[in-house]
């Protein structure tokens, strides 16, 4: 069992990180904490992808030094890390930042309107605002 965990510990790490993030998103009542959870969650996926690209046995970063000047020779694939997950994650990082940005904008909007970022307080405030209106309609 332990061997099995160690052989693939990268996956275990990402899963645990992801669980932390997911728990924060679902279990926390503070909206900023939820957002932080979301970021942890996204980061864990990025780590997962990047770890796919690893090649053991001396592979190095996917930059071909000394190959750039016109003539080229064959490259040994085993010496270069898999570049594709890196590319994908560059995009995913940007997506994650963009999402965070929009979420923060929404949070600012919420704060402007309710003066708090605790979900319970916001719900209570909304309920309090709705109650007198309902009473007006009833009468």
């Amino acid at each position, binding site marked *: 069992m332990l061997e099995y965990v160690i052989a693939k510990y990268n996956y275990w790490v990402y899963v645990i990180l992801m669980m932390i993030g997911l728990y924060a998103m679902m279990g926390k009542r503070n909206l900023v904490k939820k957002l932080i959870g979301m970021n942890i*969650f996204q980061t864990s996926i990025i780590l997962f992808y990047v770890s*796919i690209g690893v090649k053991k046995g001396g592979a190095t970063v996917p930059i071909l030094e000394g190959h750039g000047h016109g003539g080229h020779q064959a490259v040994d694939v085993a010496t270069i890390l898999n570049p594709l997950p890196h590319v994908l994650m560059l995009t995913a990082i940007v997506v994650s930042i*963009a999402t965070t940005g929009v979420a923060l904008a929404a949070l600012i909007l919420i704060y402007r309107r309710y003066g708090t970022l605790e979900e319970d307080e916001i719900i209570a405030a909304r309920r309090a605002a709705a109650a007198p209106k309902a009473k007006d309609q009833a009468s």
Partner: protein
Amino acid sequence: MTAQLPALQIAIPLLGAFITPLIGWHRPRLAGLWALAVLAGAAALAVALLMQVTAHGPISYHLGNWAPPWGIAYAVDHLTVLMLLLITGIGLMAFLQARPAVAVSMPGREPYFYTLFLLQVTGLSGIVITGDMFNLFVFLEISSLSGYALIALGEDGAPLATFNYIIIGTVGACFYLLGVGYLYIVTGSLNMADLANLLPALYHSKVVLVAFAFFTVGVAIKMGLFPLHTWMPDAYTTAPAPASALIAPLMTKVAAYVMIRIMFTVFRPEFDIGVIPVATILGWMAVIAILVGGIKALAQTDLKRMLTYIMVAEVGYIVMGISVMNRPGLTGAILHIMNDACMVACLFLVIGALAHKGIPRTISELGSLNRKMPFTMAAFVVAALSMCGLPPACGFFSKWYLVQGTVAAGQWVFAGTLLVSSLINAVLFFRVIEKAYLAPGGGHGHDDQQHDDGHGTANVVRDEAPAAMLAPILIMAALILVLGPFSGTIIDAVISHAVPAAF
């Protein structure tokens, strides 16, 4: 030129979106016209693409001329063009109504609204047109982000609903991304067609099973399948009317499209049936979704919120059609994607017209609305009857295929659920129609005096929405009536090619 149609289909709304704020900073009015022209162009392109695909078969378009699986490819087949037509067409209709509405309801923000609107259309089009799993994620995020923003500036409660939608929507998108990663680990490929060739050998790998599970959950979140629908009623109800008329009909349908793509293009039906009983699970989830959606809708007093719960049920319809795994069922599901998009669009456009006129959405306050807005209400009735599955509106035909699919699969409970649900819809909509069409208070009967014209409601003046807002409503209503009788033709020409040959 025709060879570049697939690229233009995305490029035009995308570049249009980039340019819109530039125009808008100087001339907000002009930005609206510009965005309208862009959308019209996109819709025209979709029509052209439809004609090309029906004439010459599916197109594989290699971006940058890199052959897949190394580069990104568009896979434009019959299902794709149908969705593109739906997205651009409904986008155009929603925009026709949104332009005058936004000018009134959010002055100073119109160019941004237009930009986000175009980005939303771009994102959705990108999702359906791409043949690459990761590229799909990117466009999913474009459409999601623009969707979050469009919803955020709604009525009271919208920001919180938006934030919750962002959180849960991100979970959905990330689950999808995880699925892509898991498939990549065991296949090394991101291209759908390539994956479809590589996967059958791996169908019993646990990685593939988990990937499939995460795809399904992620997509189910985006399409609002019960019990992952919780974000949907809040988000769509509180969204500003012009935005909800775009997002509500399309987002869930595009997610349903993604589900069909994954289940029938990336994976094969053998996997969906043989390896894990996903069909059965989805079918029963659909049953619950349909019933819970209907019952929750019965409990609503707010017309728009009622519609969102009906949408939860309608998503159940589509998933049920997918889950029975036979030709009529899947035909019904695809047909219902199209029909339901039109119906929901029509209903939300009606809501938009009501909102523009400042009419409260509470059902009990809709009395005599038919006198005030006769055309809008006529369109509402058409869409409502279609929702109840009454012919000759298009809803009847998709219901027919869905029922036929469930019967062919021997799933009598599913068939019963569909039928009960259409009765629930009838109760829901006739409640509204009764309220809107009958004199408030009733009891006028035969008092001979006040019958000259108004029948006791003479004080209600006609106050119809402006023509620019009314036109898309009426077009959608007419479409609902036309699509029905022509569904046989549509299925022959388009949908039958989208169903896997194995069925």
